[in-house]
C-alpha cells in the first residue's frame, strides 16, 4: 500500500491523478479462511484490521452483503464521547476514544477526528442530577467531563438559546471536551484500506445466507450468495441484522431492530463549533466540515428493516432543534435517512462468545456504537483470536441477561419521580 501524504497528493496531481491505486482489493471469496467476519461496517472492518495487525492472523475474510460502510457506519451522526456512567461502559468507550486520538496516523487515513467538545444539556432537576452523577463518575475514572453553567454553555455554543423563559430552559450542561466527531465514511474506508493491505479479503456484494455447523455443533463456515466459505471462527458484526444472522445458527437474541433517523440541513458557513445533545427533549446537532447541520432524530416505535422512518419522528426532533436553536428555523432539511439499529434491553452492546462454539458476536450498539468503532474492533479481535474476552469486554456477555447483571445505561438516566 502506498502511503497517503501531502507529498503523494502533489506527486499524483502532477501525473494528472491517474496513478492512484485501489484503496482496497476487490477480493473474491476463497474456499476457506481462519476467520470470517460477517458485516463490513466499521466494527467488522476494525475487527479484521486488529486481528491482522495485533494478532498476526492473515487469512481473514470480511463478507458484506452490500457495499462496505453502507450500514449504520455510513449513516450515523458521528458523535464521539466516552462519558458513560457504569465502569464497564467507561472502560469500553474510553478505550475507543484513546484509539480515536491516534487513528488517522495509525491507519494513514484522515478520519477527521475532531475533539470539538460534546455538550449534553440539562433542562430540569432530574437532568442535573443525572449529569452530575456522570461527571462525578467520569472524573473518578480519569475521564474528562465538566459542568457548565448556562452562561458557560452559551459561550461554548453561541447559537444555543439559554434564555430563562423558554419552555425547557437550560439549567446547565455536562461538557466532555475530548468528545467530538469523526468522518463516518473515512472510518470505514480507512479500516478497509489498512486491513486489505495486511491481506484481509474484503468481499462486497456477498450476503451470508446460512451459518453451517459441524457434527459437534461448532461453527464450520458460512454460505453466501457468492458460495460457501469454510471457517472455524465466525464473527457476526451485522448491527441491525444480527438477529437474522444468529437465527441462522439457531440462537435467539435479546435484540430488537428499529429504524433510527438522521437528517442534514443545507450547508452553511461555520455556526456550530461543538456537538450539542439534549436527551430530555430529543435533539442532537453538530455541523459537519462541509457545513450541513447534522441532526439526530429518534427511533420509530416499531421494529423494522425498512431504512426509512416516519415523518413525525423527524418533525419531533426539529421541534426541539428549533426550540434550542431558534435561528435555524429558516434553514432547510436537505436529506433525511434512517439506519437499522439493534437495541438490547439494557442499551449496552453484546461482545463475546455465543452458545455455539466458534461463533462470536458483536452487536447491540443501538443508537450509539459509532464512537466505539476502534475500541470495539480491538477487543473483539482479542476475543476471537484468543477465544476469551478481553478484560474490557468481559462484562458485555450474552449471559448477563440470564443472571440479571445488566449494564443499564438507559436506566441510569431513567425519568421517574
Amino acid at each position, binding site marked *: 500500500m502506498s502511503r497517503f501524504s501531502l507529498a503523494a497528493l502533489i506527486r499524483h496531481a502532477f501525473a494528472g491523478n491517474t496513478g492512484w491505486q485501489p484503496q482496497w482489493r476487490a477480493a473474491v471469496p476463497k474456499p476457506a479462511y481462519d476467520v470470517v467476519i460477517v458485516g463490513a461496517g466499521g466494527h467488522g472492518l476494525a475487527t479484521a484490521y486488529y486481528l491482522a495487525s495485533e494478532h498476526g492472523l492473515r487469512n481473514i475474510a470480511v463478507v458484506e452483503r452490500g457495499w462496505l460502510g453502507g450500514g449504520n457506519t455510513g449513516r450515523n451522526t458521528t458523535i464521539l464521547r466516552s462519558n458513560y456512567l457504569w465502569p464497564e461502559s467507561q472502560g469500553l468507550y474510553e478505550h475507543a476514544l484513546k484509539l480515536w486520538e491516534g487513528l488517522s496516523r495509525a491507519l494513514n487515513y484522515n478520519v477527521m477526528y475532531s475533539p470539538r467538545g460534546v455538550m449534553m444539556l440539562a433542562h430540569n432537576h432530574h437532568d442535573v442530577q443525572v449529569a452530575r452523577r456522570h461527571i462525578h463518575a467520569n472524573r473518578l475514572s480519569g475521564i474528562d467531563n465538566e459542568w457548565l453553567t448556562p452562561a458557560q454553555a452559551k459561550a461554548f455554543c453561541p447559537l444555543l438559546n439559554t434564555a430563562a423563559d423558554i419552555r425547557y430552559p437550560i439549567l446547565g450542561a455536562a461538557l466532555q471536551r475530548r468528545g467530538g466527531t469523526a468522518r463516518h465514511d473515512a472510518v470505514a474506508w480507512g479500516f478497509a484500506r489498512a486491513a486489505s493491505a495486511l491481506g484481509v479479503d474484503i468481499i462486497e456484494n456477498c450476503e451470508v445466507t446460512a451459518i453451517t455447523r459441524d457434527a459437534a455443533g461448532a461453527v464450520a463456515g458460512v454460505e453466501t450468495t457468492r458460495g460457501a466459505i469454510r471457517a472455524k471462527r465466525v464473527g457476526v458484526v451485522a448491527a441491525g441484522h444480527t*438477529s*437474522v444472522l444468529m437465527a441462522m445458527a439457531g440462537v*435467539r437474541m435479546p*435484540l430488537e*431492530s428499529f429504524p433510527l433517523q438522521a437528517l442534514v440541513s443545507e450547508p452553511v458557513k461555520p455556526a456550530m463549533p461543538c456537538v450539542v445533545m439534549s436527551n430530555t427533549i430529543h435533539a442532537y446537532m453538530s455541523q459537519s466540515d462541509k457545513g450541513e447541520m447534522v441532526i439526530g432524530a429518534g427511533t420509530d416505535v*416499531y*421494529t423494522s*428493516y425498512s431504512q426509512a422512518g*416516519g*415523518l413525525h419522528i423527524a418533525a419531533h426532533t426539529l421541534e426541539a432543534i428549533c426550540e434550542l436553536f431558534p435561528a435555524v428555523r429558516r434553514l432547510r432539511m436537505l436529506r433525511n435517512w434512517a439506519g437499522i439499529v439493534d437495541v438490547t434491553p439494557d442499551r449496552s452492546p453484546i461482545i463475546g462468545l455465543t452458545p455455539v462454539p466458534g461463533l462470536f458476536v458483536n452487536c447491540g450498539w443501538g443508537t450509539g456504537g459509532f464512537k466505539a468503532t476502534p475500541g470495539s474492533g480491538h477487543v473483539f479481535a482479542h476475543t476471537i483470536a484468543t477465544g476469551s474476552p478481553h478484560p474490557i469486554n468481559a462484562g458485555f456477555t450474552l449471559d448477563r441477561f440470564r443472571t440479571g447483571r445488566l449494564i443499564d445505561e438507559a436506566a441510569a438516566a431513567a425519568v421517574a419521580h
Partner: protein
Amino acid sequence: MLLIRCPVCAMDRPELEFRHAGQAHVARPADPGAVDDAAWAAYLYLRDNPKGVVAERWRHVHGCGRFFNALRHTVSDRILATYPAGASRPEVAP
C-alpha cells in the same frame, strides 16, 4: 406514519394514536416460580426480531384503549392483519 386498523374501533387510525407494545404471543409463564433462570430470561428478553412478518402488540392508547395484535411485514411495514389480543395468530400470505 402508519395507518393501523384498530380491530375494536373497526377504523383505520393514524399511528400517532397508538402505542407499540412489543412482540405478541410471548406468554407469561403460568407459574413463574417454576421456570429456571434461562427460561425466565428468555421470557423477559429474547425476541424474534424477524426480517419478515412479525406478530406484535399495539395499544390504541389515544382511542379505545385496547391492546390488540398485528401482523406486519418489517421490510415493507405493510400491516397484513390486526386481531384482538388473546386470539391466535391468523394465517396470511406474506
